[in-house]
């Protein structure tokens, strides 16, 4: 029995040694063959076969790396958000402080106006409305989705936001229960009493239709420069004072017999671009 066991162990040892030599030899030979074979033909076929095995893995690996990159980006964004959040909080605090200051100034204004006997400027109240319809043939009138039910009245002033600041857009000319028609500033029938920021000179703004919007009745020697801002005047019967209308785009002295300047105006709100409008619904208009 003992010699047999020894014989078996010896056979196993030989088989193990053979395996130790055989396995590396086979794989080294195989890889060597792959190296000496031309890249076309058989090797190309092997590559095609391998592509079915490896390409899904490569895609998975690539996806994993891309995901890791995104994680890094997300973390970066999160860190930035934290900084941004801190800045916004700071800005909010500053805005709150400004609001309380403004509140104090409003109260003071009301008190002083009462002493002097002047009607103080009303704060704007109103509703936001969306442009519901725009007639293709008449680009200077739009129909909005708010009407009498929302407090919209005829001759209500209509504002819109332009570059973060509100600007005069037009006036309500027709009201139904749930809609209203707005005449935009560019229309030939539109007029408004306005004043120049520089010199506080008042004039009449007239829509030009296809022509530029003009400011009439500005005396000849009035200092007007291109870019001067124009606001609604306190003498206006429709519009509250202080709404930005636009800026001076051109100043001309056309004819020698004229007694006033020809001032062209670039409206702050582009009539063709209005989408949301703010209709002032203050009942206490002058």
């Amino acid at each position, binding site marked *: 029995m003992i010699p047999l066991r020894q014989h078996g162990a010896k056979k196993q040892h030989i088989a193990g040694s053979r395996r*130790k030599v055989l*396995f*590396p030899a*086979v*794989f*080294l030979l195989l890889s*060597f063959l*792959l190296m000496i074979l031309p890249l076309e033909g058989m090797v190309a076929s092997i590559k095609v076969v391998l592509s079915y095995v490896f390409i899904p*893995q490569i895609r998975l690996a690539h996806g994993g*790396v891309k995901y890791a990159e995104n994680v890094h980006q997300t973390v970066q964004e999160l860190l930035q958000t934290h900084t941004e959040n801190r800045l916004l909080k700071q800005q909010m605090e500053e805005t709150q402080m400004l609001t309380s200051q403004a509140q104090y100034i409003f109260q003071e204004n009301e008190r002083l106006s009462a002493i002097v006997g002047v009607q103080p400027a009303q704060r704007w109240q109103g509703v936001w409305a969306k442009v519901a319809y725009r007639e293709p043939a008449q680009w200077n009138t739009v129909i909005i989705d708010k009407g009498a039910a929302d407090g919209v009245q005829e001759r209500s002033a209509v504002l819109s936001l332009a570059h973060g600041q509100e600007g005069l857009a037009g006036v309500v000319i027709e009201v139904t229960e749930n809609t209203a028609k707005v005449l935009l500033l560019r229309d030939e029938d539109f007029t408004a009493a306005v004043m120049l920021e520089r010199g506080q000179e008042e004039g009449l703004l007239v829509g030009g239709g296809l022509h530029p919007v003009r400011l009439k009745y500005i005396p000849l020697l009035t200092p007007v420069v291109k870019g001067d801002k124009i606001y609604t005047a306190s003498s206006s019967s429709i519009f509250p004072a202080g709404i930005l209308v636009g800026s001076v785009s051109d100043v001309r002295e056309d004819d020698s017999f004229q007694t006033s300047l020809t001032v062209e105006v670039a409206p702050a709100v582009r009539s063709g671009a209005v989408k949301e409008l703010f209709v002032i619904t203050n009942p206490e208009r002058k």
Partner: protein
Amino acid sequence: MVWKGCKIIFLFIVATIFHWAGATLFSFFGLSVNLMLVFAIAFCAELKLEVGYPVAFMAGLFLDFFGTRLFGNNAFSFTAAACLMYALCSRFDFESIFPQVFTVFGLTCFVSLLNSILLAWFTSAMMWPGTWSVVGGAAVGAAFAPFVFWLANRVLREDTKAA
């Protein structure tokens, strides 16, 4: 047997992901990091040679798949590295960190050198990536070695015991 095969395939996929990520990230620093080799060495430390050699060969073939000039050089050098690894297995205990780190470092340098020689021989083109790139890449691979060995041990442990 099937379960063991699944584990090896899973680890192989993990290796490709790590290799891809390592190659992409460290290429910005001019280092040629070969994490596939680190995994192949770890496979050899955990598996019997009947399985270890084919896995190392396939790992090399995976890298050859991206090559355009020569096909099979990585398979050859990975098999040669596996050969050396099995020779070292009988002398060192690969459960401790130092043999893992130094073996991976040495074998990575060896594989880079062998690949360059094979490329120079078969294509007459010198493809030496640079000493700093090779040594730095080998150092990075060596730094990852304990983790890779731990992962391979964790995944293939039961199979090793069964073997």
